[in-house]
């Protein structure tokens, strides 16, 4: 008897991949970036389908295929989720302590730096010409 296609394995694996790569899109919105719940939901759905697929492949091997590629897809899927978790929950949180950063009530260290037109700009110049200054440090490398 010809065995049935074990679609749950492939769809589950596909959902895991979609969960991984779609972060490039969901990272654009604070609601789906600060906590990546859309991606985690996709991982969960993919994981459930993979488990169902594995159960079918090993529980009823006479009916369903997937005893070989099922575990392979599941392991790759786990690695993909692990890589995502490492990047999103660990790597981006590796911040320096910045214990010496100026605190509220302290005076902001003066500086002069060139702007995008190479014109020097001093903090004191900005403060002289406006009510206040918002100083934003970026990681750069744009």
């Amino acid at each position: 008897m010809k065995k049935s296609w074990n679609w749950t394995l492939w769809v589950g694996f596909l959902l895991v991949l979609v969960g991984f790569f779609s972060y490039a899109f969901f990272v654009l919105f604070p609601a789906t970036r600060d906590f990546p719940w859309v991606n985690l939901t996709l991982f969960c759905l993919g994981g459930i389908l993979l488990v169902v697929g594995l159960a079918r492949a090993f529980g009823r091997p006479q009916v369903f295929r997937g005893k070989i590629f099922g575990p392979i897809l599941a392991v790759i899927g786990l690695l993909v989720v692990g890589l995502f978790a490492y990047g999103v929950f660990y790597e981006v949180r590796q911040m320096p302590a910045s214990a010496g950063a100026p605190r509220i009530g302290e005076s902001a260290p003066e500086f002069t730096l060139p702007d995008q037109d190479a014109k020097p700009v001093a903090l004191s110049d900005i403060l002289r010409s406006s009510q206040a200054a918002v100083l934003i440090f970026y990681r750069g490398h744009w």
Partner: protein
Amino acid sequence: MVAISVDPPEISKRYCQKMGFTFPILSDPKTEVIRRYDLLHKSAGPGGADIARPAEFLIDRSGTIRWVNLTENAAVRARPEQVLRALDEQLK
């Protein structure tokens, strides 16, 4: 409002034009000011370059810091409404 990064002026200029920013982006390629503010993130840039960690400061006219945001997560920065609220609360 001013931004500071390690990028040289020509990169910042291209980025400003691309994004339509009208505020200045200052260049600190030697990370002198970034170090003075203790915001150096060593080897965290592409190719192990030193960069600044994301940080936002509100400074009043007298040069005093009125509000600071040092994120614990590089992906989560101060949102515009947070900065506006700090402005409202601190400078009314």
